[in-house]
């Protein structure tokens, strides 16, 4: 029987069981991952559209529709997880 994961603020996730090294990543994807830069202050926020729940409705939110206002964008690990 698998051991019980500790319950914290990040969800317990699963994964494959077996050999550690599996598929060799392609040369291009490996260097693309290393080159990914940190997000920059003073630079435009990446625009996005995302599904949303707002005051009883399912809708979609696009960041650029809020230009002209100050926006606070908060990410968090998961619903129902304590903090």
């Amino acid at each position, binding site marked *: 029987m698998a051991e019980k994961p500790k319950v914290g603020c990040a969800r317990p996730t699963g994964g494959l069981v077996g050999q550690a090294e599996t598929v060799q990543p392609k040369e291009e994807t490996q260097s693309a991952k290393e080159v990914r830069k940190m997000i920059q202050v003073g630079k435009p926020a990446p625009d996005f559209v995302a599904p949303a729940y707002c005051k009883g409705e399912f809708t979609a939110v696009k960041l650029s529709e809020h230009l002209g206002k100050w*926006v606070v964008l908060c990410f968090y690990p998961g619903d129902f997880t304590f903090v």
Partner: protein
Amino acid sequence: MSVDSVFVHKMWNDKELSKMVEGGVPFPMLSDGGGKVGTAYGIYDEDAGVENRGRFIIDPEGIIQAYEVLTPPVGRHVAESLRQIQAFQLVRESKGTEATPSGWKPGKLTLKPGPDLVGRVWEVWSVDMESD
């Protein structure tokens, strides 16, 4: 924004958050299944499959002015986020002529950067002004 679906957002709002806040959450709860948006903002934890606790302040031109990232167990401080927004709003209103020193809160002294102030900040601002 979290990786949870809009359905889980609705349930969390209806079952728990609306007990903490009258009327429930008054702003959109966004869904980022797969973490694509979180990845673009540099805060998606691929191994855990969840977003880290990142908070971004974006100005009316869509420019990121500040961000803060915490690991999951530690919560944010709302008053600090509000303080930062007020500071950025002051700077923007002054068209960049004013800056807010360390420990600034609304009503406290601001600085006016320029050649005259170089090496003379000590004349207008002291370390004990950092705290209340």
